[in-house]
């Protein structure tokens, strides 16, 4: 049949046998799982056997792009990668952007399934119908920037997913970068590629995407793009990029570091670091950066980032004296394919353990100092797995915890990944909570809701936002009944719907960042979907597809051994966080209630209840499995 929006094609790449084939997608599957993250779950559940070693040939990498990707739909360029991740042992999806997903769609594929292991290093080349495993000996051993530059030059206009030396060396937390900009695969997708001897994946497409109902689509696009164009804050988003979302200078001021705060300010960024603004295909809210150190130490250095917050967050480390040093370190981390958020947490933690005597010079093999040189050394030994300490760190937080009890008890991790959103700093919103209940562990994306825009909104505004996200009327009242009345909203129950809304966006291929997500609602997303694909789905079909996908992901992870015992709030959250002279406590979203262990457990109970999962072990009930038609996956 002719597909619109979708290409209807799934590309299979068997690395072991150098065999490439294409299969047709089934319409029934597309309407049940939509695409992107949803279809990834469906394909993963069919292909991945429980307890597969993440580094074995039996592990798979499934790439998926949604039906809106490749069109002009604003912000539709998401790519989702599913695999079994080595840092956590969870089967999870990771999302990225830039031009790879767009190019893959233009080349004629909705999904790519990569299985087996190549005998020698290769890169996967996808140029429309020409798909080839190409000898990668020229780029194996090179960093991500060198590899991407080489491939960009060879195939102008292509999208590139590349690993660095950390991925090649099976560093458990190694990720990939798309177009040397967008982080993709926190928790070890880079290492899975390394284990398969795949240095990079390259896509370039010239086939085009047709729309089922161009007239309807044109009307929808016209209205949507005008809303975005007229958004009063749009210019400042484009001027400041992600710096607009989290003012790092305020964090530094709170720590009492005024000089550093000035270097993390908007003014400093615009004058001294910003080189050029870049955007994902079809994005009207460009927020990615090409940075250049314009003067002083390391002047002339150019680096790319999907969020300027990431290099500036490194600047909160005491060891770094200037923003230039932070950018230089960030560039080094990106080149190797390490995770800048993990390195930031790790360096701060190791320093603290060293000061306490929980780590000694004998343990680490060198003199510990809180300085730029030591941080650089640390990055090198992890990426290259140098020495016994380098190897321990390369094997992740769980391995580090084996050194002694102090280290094990004080590290701030969830399921083997360092916490990104600490509720003592940002209070307990859905992004903080979702890190606890997602098998994936601590991560960035899938818990977005009104709580990421900060406290202060009225309940009426919250209600409107909840409706926009597609929370059914029958559930909205429950979201407003928290364990204690003064908490205002129930973050546990709300998280279920944040995950489902994220799944709708990421199944369609839409950007989930707040500044774009704000222009979408379930109703509008459904209208776009129907105009593009020609299908006739209702709001509830998309809502249910998202729920189905999330439950299937949960079922896969239950088979991996994840139960309620894994969904634990870090003990450290229940102790005050010292920030300069301030002590921050673990409070609810509005800041009026201290979150106790009992309240935290209640939030998890109610999250399970809202999902239709058993409170005892977090498993979908038989009724829920039947209702979603997932019996065959049990």
């Amino acid at each position: 049949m002719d597909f619109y929006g979708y290409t209807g094609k799934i590309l299979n790449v068997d690395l072991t046998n150098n065999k490439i084939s294409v299969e047709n997608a089934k319409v029934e599957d597309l309407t049940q799982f939509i695409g992107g993250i949803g279809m990834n779950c469906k394909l993963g559940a069919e292909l991945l056997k429980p307890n597969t070693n993440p580094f074995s040939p039996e592990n798979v990498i499934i790439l998926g792009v949604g039906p809106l990707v490749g069109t002009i739909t604003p912000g539709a360029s998401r790519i989702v990668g599913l695999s079994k991740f080595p840092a956590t042992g969870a089967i999870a999806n990771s999302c990225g952007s830039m031009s790879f997903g767009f190019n893959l769609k233009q080349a004629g594929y909705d999904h790519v399934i990569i299985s087996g292991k190549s005998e020698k290093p290769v890169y996967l080349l996808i140029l429309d119908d020409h798909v080839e495993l190409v000898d990668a000996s020229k780029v194996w051993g090179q960093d991500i920037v060198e590899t991407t530059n080489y491939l960009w030059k060879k195939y102008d206009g292509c999208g590139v997913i590349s690993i660095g030396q950390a991925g090649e060396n099976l560093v458990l937390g190694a990720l990939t970068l798309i177009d040397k900009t967008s982080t993709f695969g926190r928790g070890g997708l880079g290492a899975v590629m390394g284990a398969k001897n795949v240095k990079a994946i390259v896509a370039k497409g010239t086939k085009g995407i047709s729309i089922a109902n161009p007239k309807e689509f044109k009307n929808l696009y016209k209205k949507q793009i005008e809303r975005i164009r007229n958004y009063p804050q749009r210019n400042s988003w484009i001027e400041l990029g992600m710096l607009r979302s989290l003012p790092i200078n305020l964090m530094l001021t709170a720590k009492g570091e005024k000089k550093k705060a000035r270097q993390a300010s908007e003014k400093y960024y615009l004058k001294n670091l910003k080189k050029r603004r870049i955007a994902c295909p079809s994005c009207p809210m460009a927020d990615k950066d090409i940075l250049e150190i314009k003067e002083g130490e390391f002047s002339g250095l150019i680096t790319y980032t999907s969020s300027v917050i990431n290099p500036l967050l490194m600047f909160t480390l005491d060891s770094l004296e200037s923003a230039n040093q932070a950018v230089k370190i960030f560039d080094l981390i990106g080149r190797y394919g390490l995770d800048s958020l993990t390195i930031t947490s790790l360096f701060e933690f190791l320093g603290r353990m060293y000061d306490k005597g929980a780590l000694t010079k004998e343990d680490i093999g060198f003199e510990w100092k809180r300085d730029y040189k030591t941080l650089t050394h640390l990055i090198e030994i992890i990426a290259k797995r140098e020495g016994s300490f380098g190897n321990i760190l390369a094997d992740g937080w769980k391995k580090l915890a084996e050194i002694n009890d102090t280290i094990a008890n004080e590290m701030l991790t969830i399921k083997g990944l360092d916490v990104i959103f600490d509720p003592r700093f940002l209070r307990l919103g859905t992004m903080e909570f979702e890190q606890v209940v997602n098998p994936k562990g601590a991560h960035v994306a899938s818990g977005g809701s009104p709580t990421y825009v900060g406290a202060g909104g009225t309940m009426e505004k919250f209600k409107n936002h909840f409706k926009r996200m597609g929370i059914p009327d029958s559930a909205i009242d429950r979201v407003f009944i928290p364990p204690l009345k003064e908490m205002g909203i129930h973050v546990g129950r709300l998280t279920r719907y944040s995950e489902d809304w994220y799944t709708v966006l990421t199944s369609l291929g839409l950007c989930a960042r707040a500044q774009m997500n704000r222009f979408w609602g379930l109703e509008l997303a459904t209208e776009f979907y129907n105009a593009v694909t020609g299908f006739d789905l209702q709001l509830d079909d998309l809502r249910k597809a998202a729920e189905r996908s999330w439950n299937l992901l949960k079922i896969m992870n239950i088979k991996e051994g994840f139960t309620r015992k894994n969904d634990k709030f870090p003990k450290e959250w229940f102790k005050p966080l010292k920030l300069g002279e301030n002590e921050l406590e673990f409070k609810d979203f509005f800041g009026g209630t201290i979150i106790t262990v009992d309240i935290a457990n209640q939030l998890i109970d109610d999250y399970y209840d809202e999902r239709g999962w058993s409170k005892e072990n977090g498993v979908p009930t038989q009724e829920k499995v039947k209702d979603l038609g997932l019996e065959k996956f049990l």
Partner: protein
Amino acid sequence: MAKSKSLVIIIHEEKCTGCRICQLICSSIYKQRFCPAEAFIQINDAYELTPKITFLDDCILCGQCAKHCLYGALELKEVEE
């Protein structure tokens, strides 16, 4: 005698973000699908320091790409011939 006027598109490459909206609009109008490769405006080195924007010979200067550019990289101007 009044001078006739025509449209020109002024390119500000430094403002281009590589979003390809211009190419998507062009191909949707003239090729009835979203296909940057077939657009009459081509962007090379989209994510390099300086992207290169060129118009193919088949371009009739309808100006739709400039009207839809969201970043000021393409400016539509009326000039006297």
